[in-house]
């Protein structure tokens, strides 16, 4: 058998695992129990008064996140109502064409970026730890930082509509319309949403590590809740889908701000590159929205059917399979752009293939419902509505996936109808089902059955009245995004019906919002498990406690509350793991990826201002450039870096007070981990995977220009200085080596030599940065896309190298001030991992700037 891969110097768990029945039956004395509860209560206390906003616990951050996303959705909904009023009659002049453009752009952008994706993150942050019997997510402050970024960016983007300054080129911002757009609308879109994408990636990192490393002991991959599988898949998709858009935003903003002609055909650019990058993001995005919502259905269906889900493996197949196949669909948004028919064929075929896994999961739900004894609860009503509407949207999806059909209906109201059917059925309805289902979990109150049925029937009928006629409106030829239409095309009455439907939906949402927000203090205490669910979130305590779970259970079944009947009682009595917080610290258990063997007691961070400050300065760094105010932006960026360093320095990877700790049930676990054992290392790995994807998108850009443009690089073009590029590459490679060597030397106890490596590293990095900057300095990026692309690669590398340099200095400081020692070297492991990616980035950039263009 292979030796375990715990790095030398790290401690392994000791003692008994798994626990025996006798151990679990041992009583806990009352006074011990009371003392433990006091300790836990103190450690997990929510800050009071105005300090409440410094909370980072998943229950608080998740709640703010959900409510903020819901508020943005209501605003975007109001925009839709204004558009429907404008379209009520032909030649209407209620809203000007310009205002209408802003409305539909903001409606789409807000619904996608400020509601649908954040809602997934919000709900997952709120409930994933509970599914896993974890106290919190592994990086609570990262969640909080992500939330504050989202709030600031969201208010900035959506607020622009109140100042008549909103983007107006449509939610996918096609150039040249969007690049030539006057005013700051496009910049608001690009910078504001890039900022929010940072929050999405932060959430993805948090959720992936949560699902892989924070499961309760014993919860192997074949028994984890399906929701966790979906979270894992969607987190992975975010890592590969958002970065191409970030790379696209990067190029786009360089064109807007500095006139580098990436999308300008007169100087060798190509607007098609934006379409590719946007839809490589945009199509998986649809599934990023759909999968977590359908995951809610996967949790509701077994509960209402009173039986385990049928076809667990099949649902895992469909989640993973959809995750992959959804990346092969992006060109089906571009069927009318004149790509070769055979290329369209590939995407058409993949678009049809994705129906297979998507269909399988719906059949698994239906089969579970048929095999069980269904109780038609309110959540189930919404799920039923979702299945009906989504199936209709899926069928029109199969139609538009066929290129010749798409040519007929492209950019018509048929598409508007199709996408709203998929999004209402695939996202809105399941999410509302989730709100009704989980409300007793997260607010410890019930929503009204009567109001819920009213809301359902209003939204369900209103939806069909509004969107069903749009199929016909589109087939009759009404293009989407027009602010008005002439009389006599036979679409007047269809538009009137749609407008009526829109207001019925709005009435439904008003009822729903009232139900959520109305005071419920008079409501008697609810049952602990009101729906009779079988998964761990229903072990929650009533009235509410802030510690998450009283003790972290040993889980061996898919529906522990059904199959392990003594579990809840044992959890309450503190019979399981980590029943205490003697040191007054917030803790949760980290387990292994496949079998969830306990590995470590992870100390998680508590309330802090620093995350709010860091988010505020990060916001400044993105928002000031919108107004071309670069000096304040740079100051903000510098302060953001300082805040983040302070936050990491004071609260992460600190040497613990003792190396091992009693975790309960005779198990002793290490309190510190470095390298692949540590959650922080996983977070760096996952983040850098996303970052590498963005870089790969830029490299793809170079080859894209080469295929689409016969004169790339233009004949006789000046190239970057080969010598300087070679020097830069060598310097970065040496810096990489120095960092890696420092890690080994430090671990071996040769602290002086390690520090020397961490001094040489930053110097080499700085030399590399200078050399790569000077290598392209003679090229003028505004003249042609070729020099612009070389500059973009240089900027990307220099930005990352700056981060790498700060990290090297951070480790040097850590070594000098005793935070980083041969025994406690997690920071150096993480920085080395970052440098592995940075080193490769530097090598590829060197090749792309110095070698490849000379061979093209």
């Amino acid at each position, binding site marked *: 058998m292979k030796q375990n891969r715990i790095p030398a110097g790290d401690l392994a768990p000791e003692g008994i695992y798994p626990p025996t029945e006798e151990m679990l039956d041992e009583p806990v004395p009352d006074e011990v129990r009371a003392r433990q509860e006091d300790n836990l209560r103190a450690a997990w206390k929510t800050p009071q008064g105005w300090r409440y906003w410094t909370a980072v616990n998943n229950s608080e951050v998740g709640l703010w996140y959900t409510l903020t996303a819901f508020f943005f959705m209501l605003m975007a909904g109001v925009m839709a109502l204004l558009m429907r009023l404008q379209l009520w009659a032909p030649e209407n002049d209620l809203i000007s064409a310009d205002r209408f453009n802003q409305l539909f752009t903001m409606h789409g952008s807000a619904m996608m970026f400020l509601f649908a994706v954040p809602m997934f993150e919000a709900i997952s942050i709120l409930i994933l730890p509970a599914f896993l019997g974890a106290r919190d997510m592994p990086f609570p402050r990262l969640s909080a930082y992500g939330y504050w970024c989202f709030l600031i960016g969201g208010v900035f983007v959506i607020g622009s509509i109140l100042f008549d300054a909103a983007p107006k080129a449509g939610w996918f911002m096609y150039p040249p319309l969007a690049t030539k757009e006057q005013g700051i609308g496009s910049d608001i879109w690009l910078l504001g949403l890039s900022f929010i994408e940072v929050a999405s990636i932060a959430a993805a990192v948090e959720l992936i590590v949560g699902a892989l490393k924070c499961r309760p002991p014993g919860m192997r991959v074949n028994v984890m809740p399906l929701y966790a599988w979906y979270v894992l898949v969607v987190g992975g998709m975010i890592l590969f889908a958002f970065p191409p858009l970030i790379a696209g935003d990067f190029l786009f903003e360089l064109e807007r701000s500095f006139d580098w002609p990436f999308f300008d055909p007169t100087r060798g650019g190509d607007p098609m590159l934006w379409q590719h990058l946007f839809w490589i993001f945009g199509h998986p995005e649809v599934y990023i929205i759909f999968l977590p919502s359908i995951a809610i259905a996967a949790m509701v269906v077994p509960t209402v059917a009173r039986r385990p889900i049928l076809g667990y493996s099949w649902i895992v197949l469909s989640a993973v399979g959809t995750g992959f196949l959804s990346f092969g669909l992006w060109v089906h948004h571009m069927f009318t752009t004149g790509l070769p028919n055979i290329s369209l*064929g590939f*995407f058409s075929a993949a678009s049809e293939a994705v129906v*297979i896994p998507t269909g399988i999961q719906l059949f698994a739900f239906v089969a579970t419902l048929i095999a069980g004894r269904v109780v038609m609860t309110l959540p189930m009503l919404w799920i039923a509505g979702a299945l009906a509407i989504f199936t209709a949207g899926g069928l029109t999806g199969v139609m538009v996936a066929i290129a010749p059909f798409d040519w007929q209906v492209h950019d018509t109201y048929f598409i508007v109808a199709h996408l709203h059917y998929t999004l209402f059925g695939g996202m809105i309805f399941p999410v509302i089902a989730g709100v009704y289902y989980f409300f007793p979990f997260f607010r410890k109150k019930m929503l009204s059955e009567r109001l819920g049925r009213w809301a359902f029937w209003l939204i369900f009928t209103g939806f069909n009245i509004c969107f069903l006629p749009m199929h016909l409106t589109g087939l009759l030829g009404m293009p989407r995004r027009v602010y008005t239409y002439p009389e006599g095309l036979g679409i007047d009455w269809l538009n009137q019906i749609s407008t009526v439907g829109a207001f019925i939906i709005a009435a439904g949402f008003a009822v729903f919002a009232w139900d959520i927000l109305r005071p419920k203090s008079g409501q008697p205490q609810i049952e602990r498990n009101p729906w009779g669910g079988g998964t761990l979130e229903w072990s929650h305590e009533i009235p509410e406690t802030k510690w998450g779970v009283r003790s972290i259970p040993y889980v061996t079944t898919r529906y522990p509350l059904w199959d392990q009947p003594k579990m809840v009682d044992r959890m309450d009595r503190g019979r399981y793991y980590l029943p205490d917080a003697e040191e007054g610290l917030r803790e949760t258990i980290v387990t292994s990826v496949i079998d969830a063997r306990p590995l470590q007691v992870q100390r998680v961070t508590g309330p802090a201002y620093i995350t709010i400050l860091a988010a505020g300065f990060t916001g400044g760094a993105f928002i000031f450039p919108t107004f071309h105010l670069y000096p304040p932006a740079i100051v903000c960026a510098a302060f953001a870096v300082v805040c983040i360093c302070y936050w990491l320095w004071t609260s992460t990877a600190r040497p613990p007070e003792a190396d091992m700790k009693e975790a309960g049930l005779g198990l002793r676990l290490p309190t510190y981990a470095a390298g692949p054992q540590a959650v922080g290392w996983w977070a760096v790995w996952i983040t850098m995977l996303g970052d590498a994807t963005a870089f790969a998108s830029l490299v793809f850009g170079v080859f894209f220009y080469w295929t689409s443009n016969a004169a790339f690089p233009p004949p006789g073009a000046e190239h970057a200085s080969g010598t300087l590029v070679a020097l830069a590459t060598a310097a970065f490679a040496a810096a990489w080596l120095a960092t890696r060597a420092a890690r080994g030397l430090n671990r071996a106890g040769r602290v002086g030599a390690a520090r020397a490596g961490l001094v040489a590293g930053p110097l080499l990095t700085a030399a590399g940065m200078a050399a790569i900057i000077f290598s392209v300095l003679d090229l003028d990026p505004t003249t042609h896309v070729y020099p612009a692309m070389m500059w973009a690669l240089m900027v990307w590398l220099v930005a990352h190298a700056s981060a790498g340099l700060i990290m090297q200095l951070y480790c040097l400081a850590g070594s000098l001030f005793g935070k980083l020692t041969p025994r406690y070297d997690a920071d150096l492991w993480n920085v080395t991992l970052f440098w592995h990616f940075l080193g490769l980035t530097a090598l590829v950039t060197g090749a792309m700037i110095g070698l490849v263009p000379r061979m093209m």
Partner: protein
Amino acid sequence: MAEPGRDDRQPTAHEDEREFAEERESLWRITLGPTIWAGHFLICYASVSVYCFRLERMFGMEGLRLALGALTLACLAAIGWIGWRAFRRWEVWGTGEFSNPVGNAEDRHQFLGHAGFLLALVSFIGVVFDALPLLLIGSCR
């Protein structure tokens, strides 16, 4: 490991533990099939794009179609092999268990086999679908 022809063989100590040990598993393995699909898809799309934009005037498409056809067969064979391996790991004929809901190492092992098998199946179909345009459309037009 089973020795052929000896049904009366006694299991050695900790044999199951070793076979189902966590260190021998990887979540990545279930994504092998879809990864091959993704590679096949990208190669087909990229090579056809390069051909249609840069090389169409130089030579006909038959060579490219044949090469991609050969690639398709190789991918299908690889996915078939992965699927077969995963099917063996699922061990449905030996155990008669289609679903593996128990939280022990053996069920986890068989579950990963089942998931890998199903993913290989859907990847196989995906590759066949994506090869159809090569078969049905013979030019860039």
